[in-house]
């Protein structure tokens, strides 16, 4: 039963991402062509909302739903993995127009072809696991 709230948040997330068309290949293409403010607006306002929320949580030492202090982990320091991994991710993102969230959302929406992207993404994740210790991080 504790999992129900995650189902609801996911459901809401799926609706918002579909209705703002962030799951759309067209919107991603339009963004990378700088031909619309739409996607930049979405990402910008999401981050703005997030920054304010996280600052409130930190400054007021808010507790989570179970009454435990909310811990927000810092990302590991580093450079190569972020620049290189990020760029590789971006190549894929612009090619097929969906990042991991939208991959699942589009499959739910009935796009069978996105299943091919998911298979590729699982293979890519597996490949990273295989090569992890040989890569610069």
């Amino acid at each position, binding site marked *: 039963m504790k999992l129900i709230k995650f189902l609801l948040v996911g459901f809401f997330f799926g609706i918002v991402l579909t*209705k703002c068309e962030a799951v759309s290949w067209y919107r991603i293409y339009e963004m990378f062509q700088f031909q619309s403010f739409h996607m930049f607006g979405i990402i910008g306002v999401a981050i703005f909302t997030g920054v304010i929320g996280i600052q409130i949580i930190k400054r007021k030492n808010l507790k989570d*739903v179970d009454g435990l202090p909310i811990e927000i982990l810092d990302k590991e320091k580093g450079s190569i993995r*972020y620049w290189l991994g990020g760029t590789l991710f*971006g190549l894929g993102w612009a090619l097929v127009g969906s*990042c991991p969230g939208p991959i699942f959302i589009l499959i739910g929406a009935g796009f069978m072809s996105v299943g091919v992207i998911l298979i590729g993404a699982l*293979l*890519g994740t597996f490949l990273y696991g295989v090569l992890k210790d040989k890569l610069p991080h």
Partner: protein
Amino acid sequence: MDFITQTWHWSISGFLIGMVMLALTYFGKAFGMSSNLRSLCSMAGAGKFVSFFNWDWKSQRWNLVVVVGAMLGGYVATHFLSDPSNVSINTTTISQLAAMGIDAPHGKLAPDALFGMEIFSSPKMIAILLIGGLLIGFGSRYAGGCTSGHAISGLSNLQLPSLKAVIGFFIGGLIVSHFVLPLIFN
């Protein structure tokens, strides 16, 4: 009901996505979609071959539940909350796509040229989707996160590594959008 079926405004949508991230934070979790790919690999038994997948993925079951919810949300939104006015992208973008032989949206979320059922008889298109997925899976794990984990969660927490990753997302994206797509579709 128009305000539901039309394209949601970026300001409302951005705010709601930020709230999704904050809701998961309030639930004591971290918002990030790509780690589910690692969980799925582990569920399929990848941990027997590669130690990276030998981890406590069951502690991440909540995130797989988020994924199931998102899939249901995607189904409901496309089947019951959409109308033909959706995905009204820039007309310049439409003519640019037409020049590459890519169909206009007309309310569709994705072009048939890349996502229609006909692609299953085109080895070239299958390879493109597969390679795109491969880059997304590999890149997000290498960078330790994707759009949700770095762009939304990471930047909201003012993380420098996330800024590097997000700049990387755009470097890669701009290369493909401006130089690779025109080569593939000509």
